[in-house]
């Protein structure tokens, strides 16, 4: 039996669950294009790499996904970083901005709105939980390519999301200008 008080508390809980259950975005605010702008975007996606520098040192690198070659991953932040593939223990590539926050608020608001459904809230409130939360949370996971200990298959798959999917054999990467300056 879903009481109104439960719905009120649960809506707050939903926001908490969505906060915990949603995928984190690593790209700086407003760096990634909105989904509809991706077709004309001229940059690579945002790549976040966890790199095993040594037995005791793990580093995280993040920046625009520039290119992949046989041995390395190239990412651009305040300068160009060349990361050996063999040291990468986790990779995440994001392509666009997600509307998880807005959808989360939509789910919480919709759940609260079931208060106006009276006893039908016994139907509509679980529906919001069972369908609304996956919809909102799923938004944060879509178009996001993550792999632990990524292999060549993974890099072949995500290469198309780099700035230079054609490869860098004839590109002078030293000419690249960082989008994010060091002083920022």
């Amino acid at each position, binding site marked *: 039996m879903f009481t109104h*008080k439960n719905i009120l508390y649960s809506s707050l809980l939903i926001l908490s669950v969505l906060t915990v259950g949603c995928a984190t975005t690593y790209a700086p605010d407003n760096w990634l294009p909105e989904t509809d702008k991706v077709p004309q975007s*001229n940059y690579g996606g945002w790549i976040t790499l966890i790199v095993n520098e040594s037995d005791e040192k793990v580093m995280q690198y993040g920046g625009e996904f520039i290119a992949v070659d046989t041995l390395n991953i190239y990412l651009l932040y305040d300068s160009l970083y060349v990361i050996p593939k063999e040291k990468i223990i986790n990779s995440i590539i994001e392509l666009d901005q997600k509307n998880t926050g807005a959808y989360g608020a939509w789910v919480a608001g919709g759940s609260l709105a079931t208060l106006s459904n009276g006893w039908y809230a016994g139907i509509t409130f679980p529906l919001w*939980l069972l369908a609304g939360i996956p*919809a909102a949370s799923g938004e944060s996971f879509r178009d996001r390519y993550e792999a632990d200990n990524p292999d060549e298959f993974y890099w072949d798959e995500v290469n198309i*999301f780099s700035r230079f999917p054609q490869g860098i054999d004839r590109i002078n990467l030293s000419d690249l200008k960082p989008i994010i300056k060091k002083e920022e």
Partner: protein
Amino acid sequence: MKAFLIFYTTACNRILILLLSVSLILSTSCSNPRIERTTSSPDEMIYERSSAEHPYLKLHMKNGELYVLSDWMINKDTKEVTGSGSHQNLNREVLDLGDFQIPLQEIVLAETNQISGSTAVGVLTALTVITGIFTIVCIANPKACFGSCPTFYASNGSDFIVQSEGFSSSISPSLEVRDVDALYRIKPSSENFEIQLRNEAYETHVIRSANILALPKPKGGRVYSTPEGDFIQAKNLIEPIKVIAPEGECSDKFCSFDGQERFSAADSNDLAAKEIVELTFNDVSSEDLGLVIASRQTLLTTFLFYQSLAYMGTKAGDWLAELERNSTEFKTLLENPRKTLGTIDVLIKNNDGEWEKVSEVGETGPIATDIKLVPLKNLVKDKYNDSDGSQINIRLRMAKGLWRIDYAALAELGDKVDPIIIQPSSSFPQKINSSNVVELLNNPDSLLVTFPGDEYFLNYQLPSDFTEYELFMESQGYYLEWMRNEWLSEENSAKVYQMLFNPKQYYKDLASQFKKVETDMEETFWSSKYVYP
């Protein structure tokens, strides 16, 4: 049992956690990609020209430069790509804008992106529409969606079912009453007896007491309360052999207390219009007989109550304050609409062969079916002899569409008995706002106030031979209905005065309005599976 109680009271939370867990498990499976990127060498590109799905083409050059084109076309005959847009260097600085013709041989890779619709938006929109539909249904017909009065649940041996709704007609402090409802279908399994008290409506419930009354059952019989408040032992119940209502024979609805109820639609022109149902019983040798009848109201009175509050509108508080200040005068006025609508009149033929009212029965409230006994002492004996001598005929007169009758039987009356009053001995939760719930209920000078969503388990210690007792729920208090925004637009003091001073016309005027919602009101309320009668 305590463990069960704790489990039961936390069931909502468990369900919630389960639903949230399932939701999170479903989350990753609901992350359908929206961006479909296609890359290939331009002469192998499966799309040859721009379209709504592929408005842009990106051409990656050997030196890292990029063309972003709209209105593009790949011409394999001339071996070039045409389109308008921008030409950018490897830092994505624009080198040139305009129309371009780029030879295929200069292009390393062509790229298009198709953006599909958002699954999340689709799902959330659908949920919003569903919620909106139910909201509209509830606004149009609020009582179909919200319960009424304090409800008491008890175990019937397998499930916790609603057994009683307390003081349904006590809508203000001055109308506080003591209400007794039979716990007819419950089967206590031990001396430790639990009742669950719930507030399931947009109401503030003010409860002075919630006691169990235990009365010794006769051998092979039961104990019933009468409309006058007495408790009488009865046995040898016989069901009617024939029941004639306006719609025809319907004895199957009256033959057992099973939720199969007889009810009718309200009159289209007058909500107080009466109908008659005639019950025929086989002859019974006993002289002291009574009519056992199990009934509850339809949602008609609920509609009328809510409509009255709507007519009071923003002045509802003033009206109720006036009721408190002049309670005696106002109570008399409130009797006018109540009497006009009436309860279930029980009629038996007198010596002249005319039907005569001997009693009335029926409690306010649409949720819990209450069972009462109407004594027919000294009246039946004279009457059935002048019919055909082998049958007893009883008529029930009531407002059309107002009553749902589940069971009727003739019973042989036994002794009048007095109840053992059993107050709650413990509760779960034990306290509310640092006050002990049991102390609040057991002290006649204190009150337990509950709000929507509140629920308590009350524990009672029954006599050791508890199976030998009939149990009743005795509650006392009143409740305050919460005003709803949608009611305020109908404020009309003249209609309130009409209800108080000319209820006959009031019920006629409201008939068409009620008939518009009557069918849906019943259907939606009960299909919501909020409670079972």
